Structures are given as C-alpha cells and as structure tokens.
C-alpha cells in the first residue's frame, strides 16, 4: 500500500521545515528584543561580573554554602556579557540565538523527507515552542540554566538516534558535563543517555554510559557534601518545600503542571485559578489530547509486515519510554518548588514523540480504505480526533506564549520608571552606580508592540499561561 505522500520526496521538505523553524524563531525574537532586564532578578550577579574577575567569582562561588550547584552559570554570564557585547541585553541576543539553535536542530533531527513528514514536523514544532516549560525558560535569568539544558536535551535526541561514532561519544560526555554543571536538571540528560544505552539505542556505547554514570556519582557526592541542609533552606526564598509531604506535593504538581499548566505555583489551592479563561481551556485541552494521541499512535504503529510491504513510518517505542523517564525525572527534581520550567528537558522528547506519532496517524489516514483487520477499530477515530486537537491547540499555545512574553516585557518596562525610587533606595552604595548604565539600557529597548485585538478572544491574564 504505497501512498501518494511518498511520491514527492527530495530536499524541499527539509528546507521548508528549516524555513518554518527560522521564521518562528524570528517572530519570537521580535518579542525577546523588547523584554528588558528585570530589576531584582540577579541584578547583583550582573553587576558583579563587570567589577569582578571570573576567577574571583568562581572562588567565591565554591567557598560559600549553597543549595544549588550551577557553576557554569557564571561562565555563561561572562560569555553573554562580553561575547554578545551589548551590556545586559546580551541576554536578549543569547535567548534569540538559543531558540534558533533549538528549533533548527529539531528540524535537522526530524529531517522531513516528504509531505507527510513535513506536516508532522509542523505540529511537533508547535508542541516544542508552545509548551509552557519551554516558554518558562525564556526569561532573563533562566535562559542560562533551563534554556541551556533544554537546548542540550534537543541535541541529545540527535546523538542518541545516530550510529555511535567515537566523536559522537565525546560529544555526549561533554554535553553531559555541561548540563550537570549548568543546572540540577542536567541530571535528567545524563539519565536519558544511560537509559538509552540500557534500551539498546545505537547512539550511546557501554563505555560512554559507564563514564556518564561515574560523572553523575561524582557530581552527587560533591554536591551533597557541599550543600546546605535543604529542609532548613526555605530561607532561600519563601514558599519552598521543607517536609517530605511538601516535597511529594511539588513532585506531583510539577508532573500535572507539565500537562495542564495547573496548579499554579504548585499550590493545589490554585488548581482552578484560571479555569475561566479560554487560554487555560486551550492549555488543558492540548495537555489532555497529547497523551491520548501518543498512546493511541503507539498502538497504531505499523507492524513489521506492513513496513515490509509499504512505506509505513518507523515508530521506535523506546522514544516514548525515554520521554516518560525524562518527565518523571524532571518532576522529581521539582521537589523543592514547582514551576513550569522545571520540565524543560522533557519538552524536546515530547515534541519528537509527537512527530513520530503524527507520521503514524497521517500514514493510517493515507491508507484509510485499506486498513488491516487488526487496526480497523474505533481507535483510529479517537487518535484522529486527538491528533486534530493537537494540530489546532498547540499552535494556539504558541500564540499565548508570544503574548506572555509581550506582556511580561510591558510589566518590566513599566516597573523601571514607576519603581525607580524604590530600586535606588534598595541598592547599597557599591552597586548603585550600576543602576545608571542598566537604566539607560532599559530605555534603549523598544516598547512591545500594540495589542492585537483578536487576542482578546484568549481572555485576560494570558501572561500567566507561563508560571515563571
């Protein structure tokens, strides 16, 4: 059963997918470049790097007690400040570069070869950029932690799926080290590499998996031996968990948030906070349709016999397993406090599984008149409905993400002049002089664009579609 889709092949699907990815990055870049540096969000760290040598900053970092172990954040800050050469707004440029890297890498990994693949890629691209965990990484201070790990998670898909060459193994080890030293979520990437080897995937060799396991062990020993007591560390910020019950609550809340966006702040009392708004219905609808779609498509995947006699798309069950493992790992690491962004490393795998599943569905619909007896069930109807829901709702979540960035920019832009007196009074004499160039830079940032009336259909508080 050869479908029409395979007749038209060539380079154009890949070129078109790259074009779509770059266009989407450009649209978001337009919003990113209008998002000023928020006061209070790492202001001291930003000021410090201009007056402190990197070696001194590192020494100070390693000699003080801490809850989080993220030494590479310091390196990223210096790289951004001096590499992008636009003062604090190097972060905006960095964010644009990071998103472009993620979406183009994802296009290259999917590598659409025909019209069917291309359509599946477009839906998967919407999942990748429309997910609130991705959008929660688009913030001044989280781009250098969550954003970097998310980009690494995207690259890791390409590495796991390839042949397992020596250079590839080196890249996997380097990527693991980069993730572990950037944020605790890097543990998820390390775990995914090891699990991929255990599942027999071609990209990760046994030696590489063993090296990664030892790196993780060394990381955990060092981290826990130098960490302050976590239960007593709720002083870091308010609303942090400090008991076993609170840890478990946050873990479950992080998992649930990944799908439906609620409960806000991991606070179960706020499970219904935005239920009255259409944007939340979209978020919940997409979040419920996607797992149904993935499970259904898994069941509809072509049998070996169908693949042998036709052009049925490959569907490797190990990718959904990796995704589930990544999601559970991210949820577990959300034990301290629950935010959308904590599941960022699982988003590229979700998008990739959506890509594989959408190819299966479209292939089944190609051959709708020739269904095999085993698969001609109402399941296909339900998977089609769930797939259509994904195809419609995830692009709308892309829109709500854009709107949240735009509105967030407004809030920051507005807060600087309105609260300047408070900012000035809060700063000690040593950092006050840094307010001047930063404030001048804030005024250099163009204002976000006019409100688009059509977006009123999404309802109020769209900015809270992302729990920062």
């Amino acid at each position, binding site marked *: 059963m050869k479908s*029409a889709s395979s007749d038209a092949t060539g380079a154009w699907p890949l070129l078109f997918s790259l074009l*779509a990815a770059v*266009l*989407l990055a*450009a*649209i978001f870049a337009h919003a990113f*470049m209008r998002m000023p540096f928020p006061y209070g969000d790492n202001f001291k760290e930003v*000021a410090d790097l*201009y007056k402190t040598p990197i070696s001194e900053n590192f020494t100070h970092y390693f000699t003080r007690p801490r809850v989080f172990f993220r030494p590479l954040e310091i390196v990223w800050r210096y790289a951004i400040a001096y590499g992008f050469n*636009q*003062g*604090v*707004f190097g972060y905006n440029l960095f964010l644009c570069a990071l998103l472009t890297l993620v979406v183009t890498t994802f296009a290259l990994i999917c590598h659409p070869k025909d*019209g*069917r693949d*291309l*359509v599946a890629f*477009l*839906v998967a*691209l*919407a999942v990748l950029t429309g997910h609130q965990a991705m959008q929660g990484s688009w913030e001044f201070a989280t781009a250098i932690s969550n954003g970097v790990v998310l980009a690494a998670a995207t690259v890791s898909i390409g590495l796991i799926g390839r042949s397992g060459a020596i250079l590839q193994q080196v890249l996997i080890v380097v990527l693991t080290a980069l993730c572990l030293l950037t944020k605790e979520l890097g543990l998820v990437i390390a775990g995914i590499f090891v699990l991929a080897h255990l599942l027999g995937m071609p990209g990760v060799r046994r030696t590489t998996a063993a090296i990664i396991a030892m790196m993780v062990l060394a990381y955990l020993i060092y981290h826990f031996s130098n960490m302050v007591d976590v239960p007593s560390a709720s002083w870091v910020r308010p609303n942090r968990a400090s008991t076993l019950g609170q840890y478990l609550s946050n873990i479950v809340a992080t998992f649930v948030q990944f799908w439906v966006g609620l409960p806000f702040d991991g606070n179960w009392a706020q499970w219904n906070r935005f239920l009255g708004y259409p944007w939340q219905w979209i978020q919940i609808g997409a979040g419920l349709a996607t797992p149904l779609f993935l499970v259904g498509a898994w069941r509809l995947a072509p049998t070996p016999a169908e693949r042998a006699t036709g052009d049925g798309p490959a569907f490797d069950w190990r990718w959904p397993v990796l995704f589930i493992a990544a999601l559970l790992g991210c949820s577990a690491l959300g034990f301290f406090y629950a935010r959308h962004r904590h599941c960022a490393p699982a988003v590229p795998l979700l998008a990739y599984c959506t890509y594989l599943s*959408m190819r299966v569905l*479209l292939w089944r619909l190609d051959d*709708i008149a*020739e*269904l*095999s007896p085993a698969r*001609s*069930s*109402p399941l*296909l*109807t339900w998977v*089609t409905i769930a797939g259509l829901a994904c*195809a*419609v709702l995830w*692009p*709308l979540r*892309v*829109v709500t993400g854009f709107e949240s960035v735009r509105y967030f920019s*407004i809030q920051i832009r*507005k807060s*600087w*002049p*309105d609260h*300047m007196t408070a900012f000035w009074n809060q700063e000690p004499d040593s950092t006050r*002089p*840094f307010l*001047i*160039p*930063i*404030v*001048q830079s804030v*005024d*250099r940032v*163009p*204002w*976000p*664009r*006019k*409100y688009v009336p059509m977006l009123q259909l999404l309802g109020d508080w769209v900015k809270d579609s992302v729990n920062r």
Partner: protein
Amino acid sequence: MQETPFGLRALKGLSSKIHYAIFALPMMAILVLGALYLGYCRIDCDPLYADDPSAAGYKSTSATSALSRLMPPGYVGDKTIPVPSQNFGTTCLTKPE
C-alpha cells in the same frame, strides 16, 4: 478491504494532500500571521503598547529621567557596563516622553 472506521468516512474520499492540509493549516496560519505581524511592526512606527501611555497607567515612560531625579548633582555612574548604541536595529526607535 475493511470497512472504514466510524467517524472517518468523510476523510475516505479525500486525497492525502487534503489530510495533510487539515493538520498543517493551524501552524501554517500562525507562521503566516506572525510574519504579517512582523511586517506590520516594521511599517507602523508607533511602538507604544497603548496609544496613550498615561491612559495605560504609566506614570513615566523613561527610567533614565526617573533616575536622574534621584541622583545627587554630579553623580557619576559605573562605566563598565556598555549601553547599547542603538535599539538593536529596529526602525521604530523613538518613544515620546
């Protein structure tokens, strides 16, 4: 040949390209509208979030002006943080005070 599953009979007569268009249309529409939005922003040189900032609740639109009212006379800030020389190449740079 099997009977077409319930609920999918409408799709049976359509070519695969129509199936694809149905699934691709929402994301394609977002990309096209987004591109048009970028074009509109390049043409329309009113960069304000609202037509009237004060009506939108802004006491002031310039952080530099607000800061200058707080600084003692002759106060010099730190010069090590570079200030962008331009607004990242956007055409709509100037915002009325």
